[in-house]
């Protein structure tokens, strides 16, 4: 699993570059690097459906970001300025939160099964009943389209709502 660790390191470096670089277009390219390395890691953990969806969504995300930046400005003027009082206060609060979060998180990570040993208590039933009850060979598709179809309906509703929001905000007619 050495390639998984290499991609995790690459992902973290690209994330730090995306946060700290001055050129916003370069930051968006680094965001794309993080998203595509996440997609490749989905393939390493045997999740082909997730990898396909992540690649499509990542392409769309980068295109939307680039469209916004090309219509506005691609220089981040706030980098290199002196830190304001509010910013120093928020960094202090962030440091407090990180300490609190890590103390809670380390405990809950110890409760989790170790990497590579999933317990699969619930999944056993879905794997056993997936093919006979729904007739689909792909268990993930069985779960999202048959056993949990109402969740997928909710997802479609959220997507539709956000499309309505984008259309309402971008409209030209009726705007003064």
């Amino acid at each position, binding site marked *: 699993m050495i390639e998984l660790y290499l991609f995790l390191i690459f992902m*973290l470096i690209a994330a730090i570059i995306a946060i700290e670089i001055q050129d916003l277009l370069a930051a968006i390219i680094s965001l794309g690097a993080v998203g595509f390395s996440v997609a490749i890691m989905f393939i390493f953990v*045997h999740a082909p459906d997730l990898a396909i969806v992540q690649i499509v969504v990542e392409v769309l995300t980068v295109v939307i*970001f680039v469209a916004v930046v090309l219509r506005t400005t691609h220089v981040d003027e*706030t980098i290199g300025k002196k830190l304001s009082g509010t910013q120093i206060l928020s960094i202090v609060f962030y440091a407090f939160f990180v300490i609190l979060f890590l103390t809670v998180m380390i405990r809950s990570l110890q409760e989790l099964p170790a990497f590579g040993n*999933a317990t699969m208590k619930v999944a056993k039933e879905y794997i056993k009943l997936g093919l006979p009850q729904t007739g689909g060979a792909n268990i993930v598709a069985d*779960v999202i389209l048959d056993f949990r179809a109402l969740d997928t309906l909710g997802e479609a509703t959220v997507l539709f709502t956000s499309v309505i929001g984008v259309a309402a905000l971008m409209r030209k007619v009726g705007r003064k």
Partner: protein
Amino acid sequence: MIVFVSCIILFLIGLYAIVTKRNLIKIAIGFAFIEYAVNLLFALIGFKRGALAPIITQIDKPHNFVDPIPQALVLTAIVIALGTTALMLTVILRIYNRYKTFDIAEIRKLKG
């Protein structure tokens, strides 16, 4: 354990961008990082060594699959993340057209 911790580090990098950055595009990038971190953590928890992707190819043999439940949950979350990102960027574009800046401190100063 190390793979889970690096997901949490990505989450904290995204949170750092949201809390301390003053540029709106950087804040949107921070939200995207948090979404990736949570999705990747779920997929990594469901991984099983020596198992196959959860697609049935042979009926008579016993199945040895990775956990399909986190994958089904994350599949929904990825698509919803796209919707929220698109809506957030549209609002950011509207803010820029009105105030001609991405700096949230400047936007706070300009009234009306």
